[in-house]
């Protein structure tokens, strides 16, 4: 296929072969846009166009925009698809007390305290630098917990629980490629 259309998250990416002529590109794009599959009632699908390594003439660009504005089926968003955002890391410095639950959707560096009965739930990895006496729960592929000071803590990785953990400097990871058992990493406690 000379023109590929990929559906990525909430937008379409038109990947155009570099060997096609400008006229062929315009015809191909018009055919795709007229396809009923792209016709959605109520909203316009966002579309990005990847022309690869090719020089685009001013004339061609205007012609392309003409096709898109005439058809009114997609929203022209640009020539490059958005880059996926890098996973951010959150720094938390607090005391999580009994009965409190702190949640985060990204990796967390935690240099506070988690008291007994306190919960830290993270969609990602946790690097705990302070004293942990409560519960750390992590979810996600290759999620792991690195902690420096655990005192009778509970660690949970993707629903797998390890209780009464007391050690210094422990790194736990869930190796899903094997049996899925929790493996102990470095430990000097």
């Amino acid at each position, binding site marked *: 296929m000379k023109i590929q259309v990929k559906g990525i998250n909430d937008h379409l990416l038109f990947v155009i072969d570099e060997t096609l002529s400008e006229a062929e590109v315009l015809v191909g794009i018009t055919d795709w846009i007229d396809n009923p599959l792209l016709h959605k009632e109520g909203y316009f699908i966002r579309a990005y166009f990847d022309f690869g390594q090719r020089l685009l003439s001013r004339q061609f660009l205007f012609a392309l925009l003409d096709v898109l504005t005439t058809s009114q089926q997609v929203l022209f968003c640009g020539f490059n698809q958005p880059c996926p955002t890098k996973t951010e890391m959150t720094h938390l410095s607090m*005391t999580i007390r*009994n009965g409190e639950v702190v949640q985060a959707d990204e990796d967390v560096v935690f240099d506070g305290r988690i*008291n007994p*009965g306190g919960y830290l739930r993270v969609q990602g990895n946790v690097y705990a630098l302070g004293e942990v006496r409560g519960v750390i729960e992590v979810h996600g592929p290759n999620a792991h917990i690195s902690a420096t000071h655990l005192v009778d803590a509970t660690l949970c990785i993707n629903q797998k629980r390890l209780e009464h953990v007391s050690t210094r400097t422990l790194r736990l990871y869930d190796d899903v490629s094997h049996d899925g058992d929790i493996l102990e990493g470095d430990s000097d406690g």
Partner: protein
Amino acid sequence: MARTIVITSGKGGVGKSSISVNLACALANQDYRVCLVDADLGLKNLDVMMGLENRVIYDLKDVVDGRCTMDQVLIKDKRCASLYLIPACKTLQFGDFNLEYMQTLVDHFKHQFDYILIDSPAGIEKGFQYAANCADEAIVVVNLDLASIRDCDRVVGLLMKKGIGNISMIVNRLNEDYIQNKTSLTLRDATEILSLPLLGIVYEDAHMIAANNRGVPVYFDDRSILRECFCRIARRLNGENVNYTVSRKKTFLQKLFQK
């Protein structure tokens, strides 16, 4: 303008009421005007512990029902001229009480006193909510056992969520023998877990029980070390830098002939 302090703990039976009464006496003895509020609606205790049970004419229910004014509900202490008690009421339930009543009561007395100490009931339900919502500061009372510290930790989190930033801690019933035998937790455990400034230590002393039963606060018992404990707590509350009381260890003979 009065400092409004709620005395709470979470767990019941740790000694909130005893601490409230004796701290109030210590502050009044240092010439501060103190109003002690019994917020344990339905289970009033402070009037019993202070020996003022027979002096209760009006209580909170009378105030709520409009049978008396707010000033009429105040009971002056027998021993301290500047100490007053607002007793709770056995028949009033939390469902009948409104938070606004409590707030109105506290606001009414704020200009008349230097300290308003609110003795909170145990738990974290309505009674605690009413007491804490009226306060600007908090003192949490904790024993050196796991359950007490855990519950206290929960309460501290709730107090912080209410915006009470000035929270300090009193360790009650401290027994050095238990600490040495590792029967109880240590002071360091409590301060580490709770991460609160230590306002004071109150040692375990049989004089406290006797005093509560007699209706005379232990603060007035010169034989007990607890008087010194509460004196120092009151001074620390006023911003003084005071050493913590050192317990008077019993000699071998004292232990041998201990009743």
